[in-house]
């Protein structure tokens, strides 16, 4: 009875704020822009125009209205209503309308005393002092010919023993040109060898991925994303003598600038009980058998006590005929209880659509990811806000669509050609890599927060106890979104920008503990 009446109260509170008058920069718009745009749009970052004060924002007013209405900005590809991932960059309908109304009304500045404070943007590491810093041996200079470049750099770790990893933080050397980075570890020396084969340049060019087998794939980097931190008892193992591989995507740029990026590594303070493993699918053959074997080796699945993937099935051969739109349905059969941490979808330039979901033996469905308008330039590794339990006997389905017609402006071939699997820009891929751990009772209630050590606190008033007063505080803030003036980050337990029912569940679980 009590929770019910309180949630009604919460809903009432959320809808109670009237918004009739003309929005102003000071009162309404500054907090939306500062909290959703300025992390990238400030000096030295990847966002091209600085958006750090009224005059800079007003100077781009019509454009800001356009890019927010069309949801081009802030950049975030997964459908937020389908499944929840950490660090989602989305504006609410209300926020988008506020910006539009403000621009239509002639973008008034209003009362500057009400202007939102600028969030603190860390200049050093977001996570603290790293245990190991690995830096590119020398600066790499891009060609500066407006063509994307994908370069793999091999950095020896010189580790004399296996180390357990809590977090990995990629630090771009030149934030203007580094568009994204993938990170992996190679113990075979293959990448080192490839690097030697191109002595004229530092690193080697590889579009699809690392172009070498990797035992571990660590969370990569996209601008603005916070580094993931593995929860208590969970993490990766970085093998001794391994080489760290970073594949950096340099944005098309008209000048030959250079970059020297580095990686901060944080070791686990307490031992790992469950090592993170990978399941992946990539449909090379219709039965999937050959392929899953290849990938098991490639992703080091054997190291984690054998893959939980019983088999992979795809509805047809992975061939994408020219002048057609083709959809593939791929299924993974899972043979034991596992918990998923993250999902990394990957396709190239013909890719249009992604949908990944699981069905358990009872037919219950868990949505994992949907991307309506795939953009190769904004690919990323998406960490779920909570562990996703996949029960033994479940199937994970991927529906992917490719547009190999001339209507696809980024089609690498003009006129279109038949394409199949491969590493090059003019090849295609259908690859999903998911991080998992063996399931343990209660996993589904654990929030994968962005705070160091994976701890979240619901002791909002800081009196050392989780009590009813904290509950009342939470309820008062329920329904607020990032960008609302009174939004406070610590009530947003999963850090997705919305204090909503998901946070309520996390709250309730913590409360009950």
């Amino acid at each position, binding site marked *: 009875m009590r929770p019910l009446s309180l949630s009604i109260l919460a809903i009432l509170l959320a809808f109670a704020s009237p918004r009739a008058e003309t929005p102003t920069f000071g009162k309404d718009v500054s907090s939306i822009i500062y909290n959703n745009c300025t992390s990238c749009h400030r000096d030295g970052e990847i966002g*091209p*125009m*600085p958006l750090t004060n009224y*005059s*800079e924002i*007003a*100077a*781009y*007013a*019509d*454009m800001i209205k*356009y*890019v927010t209405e*069309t949801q*081009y900005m802030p950049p975030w590809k997964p459908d937020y209503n389908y499944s929840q991932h950490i660090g989602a960059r989305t504006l609410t309908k209300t926020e988008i309308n506020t910006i539009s109304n403000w621009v239509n*009304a*002639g*973008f*008034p*500045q209003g009362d500057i005393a009400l202007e939102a404070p600028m969030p603190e943007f860390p200049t050093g590491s977001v996570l603290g002092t790293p245990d190991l810093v690995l830096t590119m041996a020398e600066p790499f200079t891009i060609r500066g*010919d*407006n063509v994307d470049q994908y370069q793999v750099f091999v950095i020896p770790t010189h580790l004399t023993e296996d180390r357990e990893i809590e977090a990995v933080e990629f630090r771009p050397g030149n934030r203007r040109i580094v568009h994204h980075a993938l990170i992996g570890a190679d113990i075979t020396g293959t990448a080192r060898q490839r690097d030697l084969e191109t002595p004229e340049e530092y690193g080697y060019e590889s579009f699809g991925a690392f172009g070498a087998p990797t035992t571990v794939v660590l969370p990569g980097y996209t601008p603005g994303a916070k580094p993931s931190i593995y929860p208590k008892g969970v993490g990766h193992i970085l093998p001794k003598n391994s080489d760290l591989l970073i594949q950096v995507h340099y944005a*098309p740029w*008209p*000048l030959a600038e250079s970059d020297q990026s580095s990686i901060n590594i944080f070791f686990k303070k307490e031992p790992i009980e469950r090592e993170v493993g990978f399941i992946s699918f990539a449909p090379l053959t219709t039965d999937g058998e050959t392929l899953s074997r290849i990938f098991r080796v490639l992703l080091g699945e054997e190291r984690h006590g054998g893959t939980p993937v019983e088999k992979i099935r795809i509805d047809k051969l992975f061939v994408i005929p020219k002048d057609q739109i083709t959809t593939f349905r791929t299924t993974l059969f899972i043979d034991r209880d596992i918990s998923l941490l993250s999902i990394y979808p990957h396709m190239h*330039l013909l890719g249009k659509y992604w949908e990944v979901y699981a069905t358990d033996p009872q037919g219950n469905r868990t949505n994992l990811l949907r991307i309506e308008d795939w*953009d190769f*330039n904004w690919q990323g590794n998406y960490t779920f806000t909570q562990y996703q339990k996949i029960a033994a006997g479940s199937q994970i389905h991927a529906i992917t669509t490719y547009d190999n017609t001339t209507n696809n*402006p*980024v*089609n*690498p*071939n*003009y006129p279109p050609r038949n394409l199949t699997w491969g590493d090059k*820009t003019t090849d295609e891929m259908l690859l999903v890599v998911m991080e998992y751990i063996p399931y343990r009772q209660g996993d589904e209630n654990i929030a994968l927060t962005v705070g160091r050590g994976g701890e979240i606190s619901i002791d909002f008033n800081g009196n050392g106890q989780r009590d009813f007063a904290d509950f009342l505080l939470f309820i008062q803030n329920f329904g607020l979104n990032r960008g609302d003036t009174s939004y406070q980050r610590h009530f947003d337990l999963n850090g997705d920008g919305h204090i909503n029912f998901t946070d309520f569940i996390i709250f309730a679980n913590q409360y009950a503990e």
Partner: protein
Amino acid sequence: MHKVIAKIFWIAAALFLLSGTGLCTPYKIYIFMGETCPVSRHYTLTLKKLHTEYASEKLEFIGIFPNRLSTPATIAAFKEKYALPFTCIGDSTHTWVNRLGATITPEVVVADTSNTAIYRGRIDNTFADLGKRRRVITERDLANVLNSLKDEKTPAFRQTQAIGCIITSWQNAKQE
């Protein structure tokens, strides 16, 4: 007598000037650009190439910077950084924007001596939309217009949709 000489002088001067402008710069290629607009930045390479290929006494390139925050210093810095080989001027009051009807950066307006537009729009079709960059360019609109002009043909007025940053209109801005 004195007066007649003066008259002749002025007529000669006027004729010289008219024919001079007529001969030297019959066509202007106005390029609206934004120092911080990524699409403008992207096209600096293309513009340099087009300039090398087509600029002449008859075809003059002029960069116009309509952003409200453009200053001679920001324009000079942009021109230097991307090594733009043509004159760049500021237009934060939107005199040129209004005269030539530009709405986007980058957008080009090719105009004849009487400042009548014969082409307005994109440079080429690299961008299908914001962030959607073609791997294969199939329409080179500006180059086509410049080719015709080079061959002494004046094409009929054409307009295309430029993709880039919308030029903020300050006409109905509420400044207090």
